């Protein structure tokens, strides 16, 4: 579904992402791990179109989307969460999901209804999403007033509201407690089983190892390993990157 070919992004002299090839398939969770500053978030930002590529190609559903603006990528089915939560804090939980209904199908709605009307199906969708993310009881709360774990859930829900086929989750478990991480794990599995492709960036090793079907490892902007969780775990290069051995191969 998503193919990155020699994806490269330099910030001045910093090679944040350096020739990364990656494939994410439908119904698959690809874990993307790596030490701090290894280019994981930058990869997600590039897939979303937040800044232009230095070089390389992003193919999505067989089309080159490298030059599309961010909102059109969402319309095509790519949604994301942020490592540092970025909700619309002055909007209610409900409104946060409402504004995010931007899939191609949702855009085809009668514009008057879509922008100004109550929108029957839109309303039902939001209701179901709130149930799924266990936020129904908070629907009229301002997003900025939610507890931290709830904010993470709402961000996930907001990404889901655009009916994506590819979800990019940037450290969704950061700052969550064990119970919340279990629920997150279950939600990711449920979505994967509907055929969604999920790119999961995570420092929480247990979560990635448990939920990811495949794992890719970045270090200094380059992909140094890829494979099943077990393979990656036993890869000496990966151990080296994480233990910070000075004599890199």
């Amino acid at each position, binding site marked *: 579904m998503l193919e990155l070919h020699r994806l490269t992004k330099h910030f001045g002299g910093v090679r944040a992402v350096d020739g990364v090839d990656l494939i994410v398939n439908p119904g698959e969770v690809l874990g993307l791990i790596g030490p701090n500053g290894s280019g994981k978030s930058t990869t997600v930002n590039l897939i*979303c179109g*937040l800044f232009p590529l230095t070089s390389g190609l992003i193919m999505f559903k067989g089309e080159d989307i490298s030059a599309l*603006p*961010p*909102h059109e990528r*969402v*319309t095509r089915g790519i*949604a*994301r969460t*942020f490592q540092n939560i*970025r*909700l*619309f*804090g*002055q*909007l209610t939980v409900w*409104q*946060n999901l*409402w*504004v*995010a*209904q*931007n*899939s191609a199908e949702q855009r085809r709605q009668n514009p008057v209804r*879509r*922008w*100004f*009307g109550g*929108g029957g199906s*839109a309303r039902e969708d939001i209701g179901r999403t709130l149930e799924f993310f266990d936020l129904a009881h908070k629907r009229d709360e*301002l997003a900025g007033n939610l507890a931290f774990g709830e904010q993470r859930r709402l961000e996930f829900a*907001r*990404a889901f*509201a*655009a009916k994506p086929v590819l979800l990019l989750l940037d450290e969704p478990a950061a700052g969550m407690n064990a119970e919340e991480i279990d629920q997150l794990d279950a939600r990711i599995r449920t979505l994967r089983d509907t055929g969604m492709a999920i790119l999961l960036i995570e420092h929480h090793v247990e979560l990635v190892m448990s939920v990811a079907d495949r794992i890719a490892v970045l270090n200094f902007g380059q992909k140094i390993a890829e494979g099943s969780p077990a393979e990656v775990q036993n890869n000496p290069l990966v151990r080296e990157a994480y233990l910070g051995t000075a004599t890199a191969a």
Partner: protein
Amino acid sequence: MDFYLGLAQIIGVHTLLGLSAYCVLLTGQVSLAQAGFFAIGAYVAGMLTVLAGWSLVPALLISALVSGAVACAVGFPALRVKGLMLVVATTAFGEAVRLFFFNFTYQIQAGNLKLGPHGGEGFRQIRYFPENGWSTLDVVIFIWIVVALVMAALWWLDRSRAGAVLRAVGEDELAAQSSGINITAVKVSAMTIGGLIAGIGGGIFAHYTTHIEHIQFGVVLATFAIAYPILGGLSNVFGTLLAVIFIQGFLIEGLRFMGDWRNLLFGGLIVLAMNIRPRGLLDAGTTRALKRLFSSGKEPSGA
């Protein structure tokens, strides 16, 4: 009595001006172009009634459309820049409009009178109201009907998905983009709506003052436009109305007896108000408290 009617006219028209800035501010843009749109509305509406003999309501509609179209055209290049640069760019636009009208002459001979805009001397004799026998009270009522309609429309917009999208863009452009919102389209739309409203306000202004000139549409007016919604708060349209009443009714008229000292106190009181109520006179908390006050006793139906 005439004093209060005059004040009611000023407050009504300035509310329209403030609301035009309110729309744009919702998307996080500080625009000092609103006085320019207001000026365009004033001249267009005045020319339509005086030179073309139109009646007022269609003239106002056209002035709204022209201002809206200009705002839309200005929106595309202007909104590429942000923050202070946007303030500078929109100020420059406002001044350009003012200078245009400073140089703009288009007069026709009517009997022994020359009618129409006459450069730096301005556009005199916009006598639609007296010629058609409107009393001052009629004018006030007309203005407030328009204000009520515009406020109702914005209130409803605010509660629709469109309003939530405007606010989302105002809060976090990056998150809005990443949620699939076309922020350029949203910002330009907000600017266009602001232009429409300023055009109506300007059109009415031209008719009740009967004499407009470029100097009235300078940076001071642009600053007032933006000060109203900032002082009133962005939680809803009534904040802007409240701020206009506070500034025009209380600060400017109420303190007139203080002479030159007024201006000093004027600045000081606005700073004080902003300090006491940093989110505006009518912030979200107050709004909720008011709602609770009015709905208490008739809401045991359990949510």
